[in-house]
C-alpha cells in the first residue's frame, strides 16, 4: 500500500489534478442501493449530475483521508462544481457536490489505466447519470482529470 506525505498546498489549487473516478448510487433506488440515502448534502440522486468529494467538511475528511495516499485536496462544500474529464476519451461532465466520498485511503496507491494513460488514487465519485456521460457504467473505474468548473 502506498503511503506518502500529502501535497502542500492542495494539489487541486495549483491546477487540474488526476485521479480515479468511480460511480455510486444515492437517493431513491433499487437493489443494494435502496438503503443509501440522499448523501451528506441531503440532495443526492442517482439521476442528477452530482458527485462526491473527499473534503466537504472536517468530519468528511476524517473518513476519506486522501492525505494518507499523499494527496491533499481543497475544502469544497455542497453545490461546488467540478469538471471531470475522462483521460480515455476526452469526454467531460460538470457536476455539483452532493456527498462526501470516496474513501480514498481504503484504495491507497490503486492505479487505473486506459492504454498507457494512468491515474492513481480515488479522488472523486460520480452519480450514475454523470458517470455515464463520460464512460460506460460497466467500466466501473476510470482515470480522469478533475478541475474547478
Amino acid at each position: 500500500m502506498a503511503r506518502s506525505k500529502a501535497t502542500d498546498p492542495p494539489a487541486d489549487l495549483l491546477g487540474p489534478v488526476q485521479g480515479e473516478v468511480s460511480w455510486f448510487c444515492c437517493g431513491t433506488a433499487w437493489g443494494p442501493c435502496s438503503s443509501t440515502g440522499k448523501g451528506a448534502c441531503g440532495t443526492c440522486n442517482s439521476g442528477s449530475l452530482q458527485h462526491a468529494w473527499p473534503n466537504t467538511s472536517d468530519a468528511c475528511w476524517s473518513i476519506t483521508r486522501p492525505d494518507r495516499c499523499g494527496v491533499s485536496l481543497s475544502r469544497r462544500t455542497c453545490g461546488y462544481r467540478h469538471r471531470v474529464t475522462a483521460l480515455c476519451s476526452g469526454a467531460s461532465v460538470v457536476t455539483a457536490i452532493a456527498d462526501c466520498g470516496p474513501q480514498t485511503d481504503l484504495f491507497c496507491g490503486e492505479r487505473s489505466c486506459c492504454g498507457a494513460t494512468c491515474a492513481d488514487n480515488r479522488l472523486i465519485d460520480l452519480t450514475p447519470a454523470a458517470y455515464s456521460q463520460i464512460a460506460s457504467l460497466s467500466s466501473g473505474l476510470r482515470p480522469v482529470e478533475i478541475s474547478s468548473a
Partner: protein
Amino acid sequence: MRSRRDVLRSAVLGGGAGVVAATAMGSLGPEAAFAAQKTAQKVEPGAPDPDFAEGRIRSIKDNTLLVLGSNLVFHTIRVVDGTSLWKLGPVPFDAARPGDGLYARGVRMPDGMLAAESVWLNIVNIRGHIKNIAGQTLRLDHNGHEVLCHVVPGKSVAIHSESPPTADLSMLKVSQHVQILGAWRPDTNEVDIATVFSPH
C-alpha cells in the same frame, strides 16, 4: 457530419432507415461514442439529467420497456438495433425481464420517450469489506448490510490495481476492502460478480 445522437433520434423518428444507418456506423456501444460527445453540456450541474433514467421494468412490449422509477416517475424506454444492453456483460434485448432494475442513457424525444443508447440491467457498483470467502461465493459487508456475491465462471474477473483483468480470484482475502461491479439478482441481497476491483 451527423452526430451519433442525431442518428439515434432518427432511428426512432424515422423508423427502419435510421436504424440501418445507425448500424452502419458501427456499434452504438457507449465507450466508442464518448470521444465524439464533446458538445456543450445542456444540463445544469446538480440537476436531473433528462437523458438518463433509472428504475425497475414493469412490462416489456415489442422494443419498449415501461419502467417505474424509484421516485415513482414512469419512463418509456425504446430500444433500437444499435442500443447496447448490459447484464453481467453484453446481452441481447430478450435478456431484459420485468422486475429487472436498470439505468439507461439515451435521447429524450419530444413525446417523453427515451430512445436508448445504453441500458445497464441490474448493474450495481458497491464497496465493502470481504467478510467471508467460501467456494464460489464471497460475503461483502456493504454499509452494514451483507451482500452475497457469486463468482460466475467465464464472467467474473478481478482487477488488482493496474494489472490486467484475471479470472483468478484467489488473491482476494477476508477483511480486504474491494469494489464489486456486478448484476443484482432482483429482490435478493445477492449479486453476480462481473469485476472485483482490489487496490493491491
